[in-house]
Every structure is written in C-alpha cells, then in structure tokens.
C-alpha cells in the first residue's frame, strides 16, 4: 500500500462515516485507528469520547501533522505492522476508507480482529448503482465522489462490494455486530428495510465486527 499517502489528506467531502464511527465507539475506551490520515477521527474520539486514541499512518506528512497536534501516531504500514501489537490490546481497531488500499485486506482484517476486541471498517461499496452504471453501461472505471481518483493514480487496489465483504467476514469466522450503509448523499440506510438492495443503494458501508 505504498501509495496510500495519496489518500491523505483525505478528500474534502462528506465524512459522515467518521461521525458514525465516532458514535459507535463507547466512551473511555482504547482505540487504534489504522490509516488515520491527519488524525481527524482520533481528535474526534479524544474530544467527544475521552478515548485513549492511537493511530497508524503510512504517509510521513500525515504522521507529522498528527504528532504536531499531540496525537499518539506511529508511521507504519497496515500490511506489515499490525502484527507487532499484542492480542486484544485495543477495545476497537478502526479502518476508515483504507482497507481497499491495502495489499492483503484479508490478513489486515484478521490482524485487526486479533489485536482489537472489535473491528470497525468503512469502505466504498463497489456494487453501488452509480459504479455499476459507469462500468456496465458507460464502460469505464468509476469516478464518483467517494472514488474521485482515476484508475491510473488510485491507491485503491482491492475493491469489494458489501456482499463480498459479508462473505469475507463469514470466511474469517467473525460476527457482524452492526452494518450501516450510506447513500450518495451521506444518508444512513438504517432501520427496517435498510438491508433491502443495500448492496445497490449504499455508496459506502461501515461494519462493526466481533470475533468470539
């Protein structure tokens, strides 16, 4: 994931999934944000939830900005460095809009569930109707608000749909504690009927996973 630095600073757009993730985290817990960028989520968690917030970020620029803000962030690579942490060291290990840029998402997810009591993952849903339309009808790689970078420059190398992610979670023997989809306007697809065609309607998804 050597090009992850291109993700940071993260695109200036609706980051409602950060707010959702913040809401999902219990106060006074210990959190590791993997791919924390400029530390927006860490700041949010520290300020609103009094969380012991730590981060891992691959780009030097992002790490420096975090440390200058006084956040506890190490420069590191999700693909190689999560293995250095002990089992269940954190209450939550979070990956926001980053897992699709890792070299081995399955191993990363496995590590996240090993070192955290819970894992929270948000990612762009590649089966969103607009993506399907751009590939299936127009015949080109999608450019959307969530995926604004053209194919030849994107750090995203492992796209998946919500259905794919569900399958991977099952394969890894983890439980989905919560699953939240957003449409292209950042509206939560929750409550009764939220799962209905979610794989088509959700532009992004946030999963809370637990491995017994």
């Amino acid at each position, binding site marked *: 994931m050597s090009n992850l630095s291109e993700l940071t600073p993260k695109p200036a757009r609706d980051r409602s999934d950060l707010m959702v993730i913040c809401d999902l985290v219990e106060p006074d817990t210990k959190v590791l944000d993997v791919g924390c960028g400029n530390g927006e989520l860490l700041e949010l968690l520290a300020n609103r939830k009094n969380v012991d917030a730590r981060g891992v970020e691959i780009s030097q620029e992002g790490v420096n900005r975090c440390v200058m803000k006084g956040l*506890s962030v190490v420069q590191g690579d999700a693909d190689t460095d999560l293995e*250095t942490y002990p089992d269940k060291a954190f209450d939550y290990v979070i990956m926001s809009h980053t897992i699709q840029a890792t070299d081995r998402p399955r191993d990363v997810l496995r590590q996240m569930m090993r070192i955290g009591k819970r894992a929270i993952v948000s990612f762009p849903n590649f089966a969103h109707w607009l993506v399907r339309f751009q590939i299936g009808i127009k015949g080109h790689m999608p450019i959307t608000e969530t995926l604004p970078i053209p194919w030849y420059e994107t750090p995203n190398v492992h796209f998946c749909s919500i259905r794919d992610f569900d399958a991977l979670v099952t394969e890894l023997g983890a439980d989905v504690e919560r699953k939240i989809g957003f449409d292209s306007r950042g509206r939560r697809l929750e409550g009764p009927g939220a799962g209905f065609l979610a794989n088509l309607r959700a532009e992004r998804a946030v999963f809370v996973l637990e491995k017994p």
Partner: protein
Amino acid sequence: MSTTTKPAGPRSSGKSDPLVDSASLPCSYAHFGPDRPLKLDSGGQLSPLTVAYETYGTLNSARSNAIMVCHALTGDQFCAGVHPITGKPGWWELLIGPGKPVDTDRFFIICANVIGGCMGSTGPMSIDPATGKPYGHSLPVITIADMVRAQVMLLDHLEIPDLFCVMGGSMGGMQVLDWATKYSDRVFSAMPIATAMKHSAQNIAFHEVGRQAVLADPEWHGGDYRERDTTPHKGLAVARMAAHITYLSEAALHRKFGRNLQDRDAVTFGFDADFQVESYLRYQGSTFVDRFDANSYLYLTRAMDYFDLAADFDGNITNAFANTKTRYCIVSFTSDWLFPTSENRMIVRALNGVAADVSFVEIETDKGHDSFLLDVPELFEAVEGFLRSAARQRGLDG
C-alpha cells in the same frame, strides 16, 4: 552526602585550554562523597563522584516540570543559550529556550555532562584518589547505564521526584531509553531521537577505527599524555574526521562540497587538501581536539558500543517496556545511516508489542545523523506537539 558548588565564572587566567579548566566551568556541580559511590556495570564503583550540570528555566512548586536533556557523544551540559567557553550557541539552542519547542518559560531543563566525559563530571581527567593523579586510562569502563545512574543521583540530589520528560539524540537517545525502561515510574514522557536499542556492528566498527587512531598516536603514552604535557591530537583528529563522515550523508556532502577544489583552479598532483571536503574534514578534526579529551573519546565510544538494552532485560526487549506508563515519541531521519530508521523502528515495534503510548516520526532530510542538531523545522514541530500534549496530560499549566 552530596554537595553543590557553583563557581562564580570562568577563570580569568587567560589560559585557553577549556579541558584543563573544566573543573571551574560556569555551571553547577553535584559532589557525592565516599558514602555515595556510583556503582558501575563493570563491577567496580566510582567515588568520589562529581556531576557537572547546567539548568535552564524554573522548577515549579510541584516539582513536576523538569526535563532531563541527555547529550550525545561530543556534546556537553551547555545545551541552550551561549556556550561559556566557545561563545557559540549551545548544541540544542535551536530547540531549547524561551518560547522555543522546549520552552524554558514553562519547563525546568537539566543537562548533565556524562560520567566519563571531559566537561567537569568525573572522567579520565579527574583525580584518582588512589594515586593522586588523573585517572587517564585507568578509569573503569563506563556504560550508558552508569551515566544514567549518575543522573538519577543528580535528580535525587536536586530533590526532584520524577521527570516530565527525558530527551536526547544518538548517545543521548540511548540514555533516554535506559532512563525510560529502568526508571519508568520516574519518567512521564520520553523522546529518544536518532538512536537504537543497541549499537550495530557497523557502528562499533567505526568507533574502533577512531579508537585505534588515538591509540596509534605516539603522544597517547598509554593514556598518561597530560602528565607529559602533550595530547594525541593527531590521532583524535583522525578519529573525529572518520566519525564526522558518518554524521553526514552522501547527499549532504555532495550538496555542500561536490568535487569542488579548495582555493585552487586545478588539482596539485600532491596530497594537500585539494578538495573542499578534505579541507572541511581537516578543520573539523583540528577544532575538535581543542575541546575534547582523547581518553574521554575512548571511554564514551566504548559506552555506546556496549549499549544493548535487551541484554539488560534477560535478552527480551519486551521485558524492558512491559507495563510502561511512559509516553514515547521516537524520531528518525531518512538520510541517517548511522542510526537509520530501521533501528528506530525496532524501538517502535517493541513498544507496540506492549501496546504502549507511542508516536513515531520519520523526518525527510538529507542532513544525515546530525539532523537532530540542525535546523530541521519538522523536528521542532514534532517536539513542540509531543511536549504540548504530554504537558496537557500531566496537568502542567499553559
């Protein structure tokens, strides 16, 4: 028993050798009598013991704002302000001072000359009570842990219960690691910069070259050169020249000197300093011998060579950091090939292994290992950010 002395100022005899005069440097001294010997890793002990130190800023009433700054191989206790002997800025003057990242308006800075050094603390130039002559080469071998033990004695002497932060680069970073692992409950936060958990084979090799240059100088006289009123300045200068190369980087040397010639239009087909880089190194060597003692150079390089933090914890580095409450910030520089990022990252990995509170910044610069002493704004910002956040967690005002 321990006592403090503070000379009024530098001796005004007009003598120019700062080393001979080092016992009267304008700094503070803590003296530890025969009842307070320094126990050494080598098995022996050092007594009486003197620790020369300088302080900046004011200790608050809660005694909770003290920062121990640990100097590197050829540094000294004058880390800020103006150096009383050279008249040049202190070695970390860019970082430490009023309103600077290590703000002397907020923090109380303590910087002690290391044991084995040559700026007033007990070292090869001190008088051996057994013989009445300078220790010279008969001083027991000193380790990084011994240096820190002496600093702990100083802290007790100053009646300061614990440190808000311990910080330092290179050999100073080794001291920081020793402090933060062996006296973890007295260290709130720690900043080891451009350092390693152990000295690498390559680094030991470079040090050995330097030592052999000193030992090969006929003026060394088995370490008793001062009694003969001479110094092995040629050997020490060569040692410094070789070491100085390791503090820079190929890119920095190229940027500064390239293949430029020194005050001439063509090479001379001789062995003069034709190239600017040669002239620069010769200058570095010749100025170093005026301010540093050759025996101290042997002892301090040895101390670094012996440093192996894991070895002090049954060979398991996880033991060193287990249950640590200390907050860490580790900094490395991309062009540092003496203490490369990979060595610094090993500290980070060990700290991650116990889920410690750790920050790690790798700063991009072509200035090599010496970056930690130079004008590198990213370093200043990292130090400032880390200390600000640690101060908030510690409940320090401001």
